[in-house]
């Protein structure tokens, strides 16, 4: 089976994971900008990170026959600091034209604070101005429902942004409908304990269908499963879903969404 991993933090993973991804059929990865697990000291930390995402990581992936794409932003975990947000946003126009940058991501909210919301609006405004795709992180656990509503509201306020150019990620049973109803793409994240499981992802697809939906591992520096997309595919096969539907979700849908960037090539 060939597939694309639409959300994974490869800078936090070992080369062994690249080997496993490649041998299981992964042909491309998409890596949103993320929190390092600690707050970076200054904007210079982000310059280093953006260099890593746009220059070094694509070469590392290439050794295993995998194409590496990425997304840029100040992640919501660090967006309480609005001065830092402004500084990081000022760096982005310099990097956005790099051939492997698909757009802004993962932007969004963490604890749904006023400053996070302001930082999200600043990201959305610049993304609209640069006319790039958006990948949204929705908050964890008890904050997800409210954060998803607030994010949808913020994006809709920027009327120039077409919903089909936005994916709202980490959706679960209580947020899928509102995301689909608003016309956005849906991301289901297969992550231990705090997000979705591959069985629940299969349930959601049986209920809502396979259009404008993707599954990802969001594997990072935490306890996570970089091969999670293959577990999902196995689950779907076990339930009797045809290979054509599975391939649509894990390969064709990511191509359809990412190709809107004008840069994504397999």
């Amino acid at each position, binding site marked *: 089976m060939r597939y694309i991993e639409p959300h994974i933090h490869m800078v936090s993973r070992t080369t062994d994971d690249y080997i496993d991804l490649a041998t299981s059929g992964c042909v491309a990865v998409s890596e949103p900008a993320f929190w390092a697990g600690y707050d970076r000291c200054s904007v210079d930390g982000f310059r280093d990170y953006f260099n890593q995402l746009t220059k070094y990581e694509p070469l590392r992936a290439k050794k295993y026959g995998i194409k590496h794409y990425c997304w840029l932003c100040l992640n919501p*975990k660090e967006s309480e600091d609005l001065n830092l947000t402004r500084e990081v946003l000022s760096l982005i126009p310099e990097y956005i034209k790099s051939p492997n940058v698909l757009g802004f991501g993962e932007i969004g909210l*963490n*604890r*749904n*604070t*006023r400053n*996070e*919301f302001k930082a999200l609006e600043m990201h959305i405004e610049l993304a609209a101005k640069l006319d790039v795709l958006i990948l949204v992180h929705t*908050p*964890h*656990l*008890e*904050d*997800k*429902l*409210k954060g998803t*509503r*607030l994010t949808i509201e913020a994006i809709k306020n920027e009327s120039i942004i077409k919903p089909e150019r936005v994916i709202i990620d980490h959706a*679960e*049973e*209580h947020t899928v409908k509102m995301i689909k109803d608003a016309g956005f793409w849906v991301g289901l994240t297969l992550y231990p304990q705090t997000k979705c499981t591959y*069985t*629940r992802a299969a*349930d959601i697809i049986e209920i809502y269908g396979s259009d404008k939906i993707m599954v990802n591992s969001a594997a990072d520096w935490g306890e996570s499963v970089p091969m999670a997309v293959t577990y999902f595919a196995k689950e779907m096969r*076990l*339930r*009797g879903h045809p290979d054509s539907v599975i391939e649509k979700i894990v390969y064709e849908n990511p191509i359809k969404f990412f190709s809107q960037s004008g840069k994504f090539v397999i």
Partner: protein
Amino acid sequence: MTKKQTLDLYFLTARHLLIEVAAFMDRVDRSEGEEDFRIIAFRKAVEELSKGGSNRAERILNVFSDPTTEPVEKSASKSATGAYNPAFK
């Protein structure tokens, strides 16, 4: 899938998870000290399991969710706890 196929595939796993939930609740009951908002929300979520309807997962997620609609001024920490704490309104 038929009901039999669904049960064949998932019954043992679901049984295992349900017993884990029961053992967790017993463990909390045996523990010393005060309860907090998390176990209160958890009990409400468990009640949802025995109600009818086909959207139990969605309803349980809603029980744990922050029902407010406006951004908060500040957050006590970077990390969510898993259940909404009404004291942080």
